[in-house]
């Protein structure tokens, strides 16, 4: 499932200094304090409970743990999570 970028692609991306989120579609996670978290370039929601949210990105899963987690909005590739965020894990 996980397509590894070919060596040529890797070299081109490195030499042109293209950011990883564009070149490899890596997820961007931005946290503002411990109350707001933005995830860009995610693929789908795997689990959503009040205490955790697991989101699939291209390379791995991202698990956000906390209390009273709420998805303020989400679109095809962007999501904003509000609540008391305690941990953010990367699961391979």
């Amino acid at each position, binding site marked *: 499932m996980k397509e590894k970028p070919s060596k040529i692609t890797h070299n081109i991306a490195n030499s042109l200094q293209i950011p990883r989120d564009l070149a490899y579609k890596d997820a961007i996670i931005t946290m503002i304090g411990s109350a707001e978290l933005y995830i860009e370039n995610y693929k*789908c*929601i*795997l*689990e*959503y*409970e*009040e205490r955790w949210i697991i989101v699939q990105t291209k390379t791995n899963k991202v698990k956000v743990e906390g209390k009273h*987690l*709420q*998805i*303020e*909005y*989400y*679109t*095809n590739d962007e999501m904003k999570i509000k609540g008391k965020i305690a941990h953010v894990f990367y699961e391979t």
Partner: protein
Amino acid sequence: MGQWIYYCKGYLHIRLISNMPERFLNLCANHQIPIWNLKHIDNYYEMNITVSGFYQLKPLCRKTCTRIQIQGKYGLPFFFYKNKKRTAFFVGIVLCIAVLYGMSLFIWNIHVDGNLSNSTQSIVTYLEEIDIHHGIRKSTIDCSELAVSIRKEFPDIIWVSVKIQGTRLILHVQENTDTYKEEEAVNDETPSDLVADKEGVIVSMITRQGVPQKNQGEECKKGDILVLGRLDITDDNGEAVRYQYVSADADVYIRTSYQYYHEFPLTYEKREYTGKKKSSVFFQIMDYYLSAKRKSSFKNYHSVSAANRVKLTENFYLPITYGTLTDYEYHMETYVYSNNEAVAKAEERLDQFISRLQEKEVTINENNVEIEINNTSCIAKGTLIVIEKIGKTVPVTNLEQPKIPEPESTEE
């Protein structure tokens, strides 16, 4: 901003009962159905969804075996639907919009800036004179014409910008800060003599035009001709052959004296305020005056009124005034000047007199004023010797031109 658009278009608050909620949510994202404020409460998921998005949910629900309950309907379309029987409410909204639009067609504020020597009030008063006032229709104002007329009316305003912004008429003016004024050229070529208007001894005389009739050190009396405006053109024999008339012009300074006498009594009365006061309010609409004031119980008092005029915008005053009237009680006390105080007061009066003279470019040469104090009054009297400029122009008396004898013709 996004929330406001959702409110205008209407949205639903729904509850999701499903075994595969995540799949449902991912399908919504794939179908680009906007969902926000998604919460997990107990075993349910609650969220907001647009009305158009809600109609797209049916196949997704079938696919994921999901049941949906509508918890609430929000936004303008639902609000109008709920209140469709309240016609007065909607008529009110329409009227409000109509009144707002109607009001926006008029000028409600006149703002002037950049003016220093011309007061805002004087400019606004001029605008009223040319029928530009608060409440005038915006379409009747011609900004460029108004700017031209303001420049004409106020010569020291050198630049005017008039613009209408919303319901405001804004005037930016630039005044001429250069206070230099060209002296009026004295081109009065009417033949005239310079005549003394006071008597005294001439101390200095500089003649620019005309024939001086007096010399320095000579005494002149009121009415004496100082400089004659008639020039006698003489021939070789010294006989006048022609009179030429000019406007006599000279600086003549004389030494003269002023008699000074000032007497004032040593006793005087002064108001002593008791500190008691009574305040009341008043209200005035045009000529109708309403006051809560009763007849004052004070024997001697004076009233101070502080009035405020009601205004709608910065220069839009209404004929409504309100304020307070305060009576301050006093009684008259009699005091007597001490010798020092009396002398100081007399000197103060004399200084005022001298400074008034100095304003008229009179130089004080000698001051022989003495101050005496008797039992009842203080008297300052004496003479002030001053040097001052005199001379007033009077039309010259025209003389008949002398007859020139015909030159004798010699026959060859």
